């Protein structure tokens, strides 16, 4: 158990420290690249939750695909990626207020919520369990997902075409 705690603290640091760079760096590409260790840290947290299939998804989709997408989008910025970008504006006090209120609200809920503990064994192969669940109990959700993907592609192409012409 102590080992798991140590792993959690380490992974949390790996997740949070680059995340701070993401929102503070004046170099937009560095900010985007700092997302990679953040994503990997989150995937490590999934490992601690015994969700290894989700871990692989996190690495494959977020670290390997979304980051590339974000980098390509940044390459489109007018004036190029070498320009320093300011990430804060004049509304810092207001921002602190909102962030503080949100943090307070979340803490309030966290402390009051009853956390159910489920006893029993984890499924040995959770990819298998996920597959079975998707194809039986959640078949409708599964099919609708493909519609969501279809709509998102069509929307993105329409937007990109308009920008291009």
């Amino acid at each position: 158990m102590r080992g798991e705690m140590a792993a959690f603290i380490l992974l949390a640091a790996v997740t949070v420290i680059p995340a701070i760079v993401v929102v503070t760096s004046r170099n937009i590409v560095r900010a985007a690249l700092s997302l990679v260790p953040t994503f990997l840290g989150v995937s490590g947290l999934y490992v601690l939750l015994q969700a290894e299939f989700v871990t692989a998804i996190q690495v494959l989709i977020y670290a390997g695909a979304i980051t590339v997408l974000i980098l390509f989008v940044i390459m489109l910025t007018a004036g190029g990626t070498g320009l320093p970008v300011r990430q804060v504006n004049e509304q810092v006090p207001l921002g602190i207020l909102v962030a503080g209120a949100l943090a307070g609200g979340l803490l309030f809920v966290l402390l009051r919520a009853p956390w159910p503990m489920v006893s029993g064994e984890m499924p040995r192969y959770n990819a298998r369990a996920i597959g079975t669940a998707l194809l039986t109990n959640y078949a409708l959700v599964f099919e609708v997902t493909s519609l969501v993907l279809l709509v998102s592609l069509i929307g993105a192409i329409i937007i990109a075409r308009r920008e291009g012409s």
Partner: protein
Amino acid sequence: MSWALEILKASLYAVIVFTFAAVFAAMLGVYLERKISGWIQARVGPKHVGPQGILQTVADTIKLLQKENIVPRNADFLVFSTAPLIVTVAALLGYVVIPWGKLGDWILIVRDLNIGVLYFAAVSSLIVIGILTGGWSSNNKYALLGGLRSASQLISYELPLGFAIISVAMMAGSLSTVDIVNAQRDVWFVFKQPLAFLIFLIAAAAETNRIPFDLPEAESELVAGYFAEYTGMRFALFQLGEYAEMLAMAAMTTVLFLGGWRGPWLPPILWFFIKTYAVVFFFMWVRWTYPRLRIDQLLNLSWKVLLPLGLLNILGTGLVVTLAR
């Protein structure tokens, strides 16, 4: 206490596997590349350092160790230094799930993850970030263009690669590499899934930037592409990553389609290496047989040929397996 012991054991494995990759994938790989190229072009290749030039790459490594690390003034130093590390480590992480053979009942694999092949696909997908950052941080026009092209190529071929892996997983009913090898007890999957095998080979060649898919490095137009500005050991790390990835892809081809360590008479480890290096030889042979593709041809091949073919192959496999039940 057991945690510390496991970490120590894991570190030991890591050192062994990485030394292995540096020697057998990179050094031997470069030597074979030059020797086979020479043989195909009717020259002798490296000849002077050691018998038949076998120590040539060792000498090259020692030479590279003495070279100055130059970082161009306009480059982003931090990102520039990190990029080769990403490529190397991402390539080497894939080695965790490769089963090298069998000694008695003991399977030579670092860890048999439940989601082995998916893990392999996931960590290989990280290489693209190293290449893209290497190209961008150099602040060099050729390097950035090479990096962007390479990224488009790598992400385009990741999809057919995934489809081929899924076709095999459907036959084996598992994602673990050991289970997949065991499922090929009677028939190798190359005979059951010839189309997936072809797709996997083409996509693997593209993922490792091999000719005819070496546009990112195209010497004649992009002066070596994304690593144009890299010198000395940083350049060597990119090369190490690339050759380590090539060997890993060849080993994965063996695991997925060529029955892994299975074979008669010879010991399993030997079989695995024979098959893997046969695939490596195939990649090198292709290099001197086909000219480089144009980028639009390259992307068309992936998106308009391999992608629909891979999908149809999965549907066909699913139909046959479901009907035969």
